[in-house]
């Protein structure tokens, strides 16, 4: 671990340390704060001006312990759900990731078949055709925003397919996704919770029309039809339908979007690793999970303690907010060798926390890997390199760990 002892991360008294500030993530300066916590206070209490009091869980082992104990650590939206930011009272958003068993299990099983092995195999050719089309349309010798032209475009196309959503309207999906995760009043288009609710109402109305078409038609293998016909989901309230839509929209595009952008950045910063991959594309087996580990597109998941309990010597009380920092666990030197290095041929690269562990583990993890894999296979076939030619702009969030701008140039 690199310790620069004059950095505020190492000199601030522990009691005043707040790693959740979205500005730290936007500036990409959160890393030393988590290194300090892993070393000096692996389970740590802080007060945030944005999010109130919360516990940080920062090591691999402790994160796994919380993940595997849903009886003590609830995901329920009624307690605040799965992100550090509480939604305003009365505006809770029930969705299956923010439910506990048994209801979580029942609803999850309705949508799980969308990523069954046979379905993924059927999607491969479609993904490849789209990847080729997008890559072949990129400008050469000119600067453009990779996030906009590739990461968002590819993932909303995929999401439109999974929902069987009108293709020409697909950018509504990324708009709704960004609207759901953005911190209100922080400079983006969501200036208040009322604005967010108005955008949610548009989203719900649009999808309700799709639901009404599909509920009266025979079941088909798209997410809306599956929800409309699923025993555990066909009787959902409109608010629960909205919640599950937001879950599938955010989970289905924003995460992969940021891993796609992150991969370009990491391979630009590590030309030796890019050369290894060019020489041996079979290394994508480990390079793809390594990109997902190194990016950690969701920096954390949050739980709420249901009972008084002890974690790594700290006393956590019923009702406390507990934040599992995946982004820290993925850099835990006691679990991962040389965790700060990006290595396309990393041994056991699949062992990372980015998808979460336990019953809430990412439903779409194999689809995310498939998209990344096909994208990189086709990039390696076409481009000698992708140069990042300016500073990336990062999202103001300690939940979504991603980029809004990644200026790149593909040599002519």
């Amino acid at each position, binding site marked *: 671990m690199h310790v620069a002892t004059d950095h505020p991360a190492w000199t601030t008294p522990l009691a005043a340390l707040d790693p959740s500030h979205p500005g730290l993530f936007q500036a990409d300066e959160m890393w030393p704060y988590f290194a300090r916590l892993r070393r000096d206070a692996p389970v740590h209490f802080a007060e945030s001006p944005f999010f109130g009091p919360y516990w940080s869980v920062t090591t691999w082992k402790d994160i796994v312990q919380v993940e595997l104990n849903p009886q003590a650590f609830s995901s329920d939206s009624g307690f605040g759900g799965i992100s550090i930011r509480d939604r305003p009272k009365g505006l809770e958003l029930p969705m299956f990731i923010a439910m506990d068993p048994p209801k979580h299990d029942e609803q999850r099983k309705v949508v*799980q078949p969308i990523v069954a092995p046979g379905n993924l195999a059927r999607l491969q050719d479609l993904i490849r055709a789209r990847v080729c089309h997008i890559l072949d349309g990129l400008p050469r010798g000119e600067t453009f925003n990779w996030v906009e032209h590739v990461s968002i475009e590819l993932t909303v196309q995929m999401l439109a397919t999974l929902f069987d959503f009108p293709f020409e309207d697909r950018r509504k999906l990324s708009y709704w996704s960004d609207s759901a995760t953005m911190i209100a009043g922080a400079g983006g288009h969501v200036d208040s919770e009322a604005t967010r609710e108005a955008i949610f109402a548009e989203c719900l109305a649009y999808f309700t029309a799709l639901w009404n078409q599909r509920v009266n038609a025979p079941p088909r293998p798209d997410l809306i039809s599956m929800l409309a016909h699923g025993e555990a989901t066909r009787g959902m309230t409109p608010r629960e339908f909205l919640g599950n839509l937001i879950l599938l929209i955010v989970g289905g595009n924003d995460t992969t979007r940021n891993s796609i952008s992150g991969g370009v950045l990491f391979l630009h910063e590590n030309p030796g690793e890019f050369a290894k991959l060019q020489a041996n594309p079979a290394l994508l087996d480990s390079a793809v999970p390594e990109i997902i580990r190194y990016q950690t597109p969701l920096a954390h998941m949050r739980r709420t303690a249901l009972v008084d309990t002890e974690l790594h010597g700290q006393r956590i009380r019923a009702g406390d907010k507990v934040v599992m920092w995946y982004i820290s666990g993925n850099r835990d030197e006691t679990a991962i060798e040389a965790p700060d290095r990006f290595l396309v041929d990393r041994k056991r690269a*699949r062992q990372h926390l980015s998808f979460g562990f336990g019953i809430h583990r990412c439903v779409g993890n194999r689809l995310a890997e498939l998209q990344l894999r096909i994208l990189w296979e086709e990039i390696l076939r076409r481009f000698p390199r992708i140069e990042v030619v300016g500073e990336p702009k990062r999202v103001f969030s300690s939940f979504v760990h991603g980029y809004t701008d990644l200026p790149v140039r593909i040599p002519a």
Partner: protein
Amino acid sequence: MPLITYIEHNGREHKVEVPLGHSVMQGAVDNAIPGIDADCGGECACATCHVFVDPAWLGRTGTPDAQEKSMVSFASTAQANSRLACQIQVTAALDGLVVRMPEAQH
């Protein structure tokens, strides 16, 4: 050491000796047998070491606990003889065990 037979979804067989006390998952990973991903490293937390235990051996591999049952239940390929290989410890009584792999780990 007990001999374990791992059969990939495509039918390819791998017979390997696995030390007592190791898990059936470790046996696959240590011998680089394709088809077992073991993303969580053996914590019963990811369900990517999913196997089908040959019915003749079900009586000797024990019964899954609640955590394992719940993780397996999310796999769309799950069957009555589904287990997570990380939760089966190799004992002398498992000499000859046969496990098959699903189409893909998820």
